[in-house]
């Protein structure tokens, strides 16, 4: 049961032309657009200024780095959102009505376990590349 990278064979090239067309239009537009020379940031360390901006320490930012507002609230909010996203991801990954432990979800990749596996009777342990379990319900989408 070796696995190795293979070239994708199910590539839908027809759809891809849409992306190419989009690139054509965008590139054509950008190349033809007129821009002034960029203002740039002059003296001072940009990364440092970013750090100041993120924690609302605006007075420490050099004048050459333009007008910047404070982002402390956004920072906090994003932090919370990130946390929430992590929790949400874990919640999604967890199987309903079964062993609530986080370890199971992470260990088996969310794959549906056979009865034997769940009962610990399978000595070979969870195989990462084993195919779909024949005992599992079929969820083939109807079409």
């Amino acid at each position, binding site marked *: 049961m070796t696995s190795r990278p293979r070239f994708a064979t199910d590539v*839908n090239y027809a*759809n891809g032309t*849409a*992306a190419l*067309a*989009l690139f054509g*239009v*965008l590139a054509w*537009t950008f190349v*033809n657009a007129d821009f002034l020379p960029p203002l740039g940031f002059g003296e001072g360390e940009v990364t440092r200024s970013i750090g100041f901006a993120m924690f609302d320490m605006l007075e420490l930012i050099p004048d050459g780095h333009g007008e910047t507002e404070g982002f402390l609230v956004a920072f906090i909010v994003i932090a919370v959102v990130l946390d929430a996203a992590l929790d949400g991801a874990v919640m999604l990954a967890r199987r309903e009505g079964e062993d609530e432990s986080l370890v199971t979800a992470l260990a088996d990749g969310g794959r549906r376990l056979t009865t034997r596996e769940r009962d610990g009777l399978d000595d070979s342990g969870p195989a990462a590349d084993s195919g779909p379990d024949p005992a599992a319900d079929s969820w083939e*989408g109807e079409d």
Partner: protein
Amino acid sequence: MAGAYDFVPAIAALPLLAFVVSLFFGQYLPRRGAEAGIVATAGSLVLSMWTALTVAGVTGSATTYNENLYTWVAGLADSAVTLRLGVLVDPLTALMLLIVSLISLLVHVFSLGYMNDEGETGLPRYYAGLGLFTASMLGFVFANNLLMAFMFFELVGLCSYLLIGFWFRDAGPPSAAKKAFLVTRFGDYFFLIGVVGVFATFGTGLFAPIEGAETLHSFPELAEEAIASGASEAGVQTFFGLGPEAWFTVLGLLVLGGVVGKSAQFPLHTWLPDAMEGPTPVSALIHAATMVAAGVYLVARMYGFYLLSPTALAIIALVGGFTALFAATMGVVKQELKQVLAYSTISQYGYMMLALGAGGYTAAVFHLTTHAVFKALLFLGAGSVIIAMHHEENMWTMGGLRERMPVTYYTFLSGSLALAGIVPFAGFWSKDEVLYEALIHGLGSEGSIGTLLLAGYAMGLLAVFFTAFYTFRMVFLTFHGKPRTDTARDPEPVRWNVKLPLAVLGIGAATVGFINMVPVKKVTGAEIDYLHKWLAHGGIELTTSEHYGELLHDVAHIEQAELGPLAPGAVSLLLALAGVGAAWTLYNVPEPEEHTDRLGGVKTLLMHNYYQDEYQVWLAQGVTVQLARAADKFDQGVVDGVVNGISSVSLFVGSRFRRIQSGVVVNYATLMTLSLVLLLLAFVVAGGVL
């Protein structure tokens, strides 16, 4: 002091009350509602007599009465006409009130014998119908304006429908009732246009002006003024840019539509013979003496208006004369007693129309009076025979009834002589005067109108022969010869309630002609033309026959020729006698045969009533119903088809369009990308970059 005129509305209200009583309480009364009807019509008769006496100047000083009593629809704005109900009493009204209430009373009494004694069910309904009919007919008679006349005219039609269809369990009567109502409704359609038109033209529908603090003008009066001094002078509105004469002719002819329908004139006469499906007393009251007279009465009522239009007069005369002859020929071949009488009724009303068209106002009213008496008599006599024959109407099953039912026979004979126009019975005097008026006015007038009147006269004269013939064919077949069936040999006896009305009317048929013996007056100079004098007097000058005479002369330009009454009278009498003689030869034998076969193809034509019914049925079913079916197909297919089409198109488009919603994220993304490309291109193009 309350005079007779205050009680005129009660003349109609009493039978209306009888209608209510009979309908709701008739089943609890011993005679199933007849009591209410008899009492009410007797009351109406008494009140009518009182009214007539007052009009004559005996019991009061005011000889006429014309008041608006009730505002039906008030027009608040300037240009909105106000519609009222009111009472007009003049000599014509008084006469007609008498006729209607008398005949109605007699028919109620007769119904005791014809309906109660025969054990019919549903009698409360029957007497309610009679009561409602009497009420509406009387209301029609004293109506003082055209709209009120129309309203009661329609009610009368309803009663006719209800009473023809009295025996609704059989197939025939409901169908006949439907036909009667539909055909007259077709005529009333034109009448209604006429009513609306008259109100729109004159702003009033009054038959006679109402004197008072502010004189309300009548429409014949306004029309007269409009013709004399122009429409705008008289405050009259004409339409389509027609001059007053032409527009009044149009209006007159429209109203005439209702007259033709109700008085069963050609071509709307077809309902009347079918209407004989109703009980015989109903035929006597409604389809002979009164309701059918409504049309003629209406023309007489607004005669001042018709006199303004010679064209309308000529058409009336021509329709009348033609109908008189046309119906008489059909009466010749009929086998059923009531059918003969029905065609005779149509024919006789044709005479009245002829008289009206020819300017013989008094003659028409005279014939209306006498006809009401003798035709009611004949129908009641026929009813008596039908009782005796156990509801068998075919004359070929009768014969020899003379000995077995003498009262019926002699009264029936009196009526027949009157109908045939044999001197000195009532019909002779009136029919003679009708023909005489047509002749002298035809001879006296210039141009086409004279010719048309003479044509009407000729047809009327010819009809005299046929009338006498079919009348006496009927008499001989029914009463003379040998009985041809067992029923005829042993007829059921009839009681007093049948004989009494017959006797009253029999005497009337013999004598009522004496009220207006114009030829005798002309010869002897004795002032015995009472009806002429009656109609010529009255407080409302505009509705007197004198005024009509002036109008005839001044506006319609119909002149009288100088001609004595004797020669024309003799001609018509001779023709009548010839008709009687022909009938005598052919049918007054012990065992008469059907001579109609000798007529060959004509017989088929006559038996089928000149195919009038066929073409009217074809018009109704072949044309209108087919048109309706086509319209239905069109509606279901095209109109609704478009609606359903739109709905199925949107459903179809939806069902196709939702395929885009494939559920595959990749497809959505592709679409989004493509759309974005397109949108960008559109911006590029719209922004003028390209």
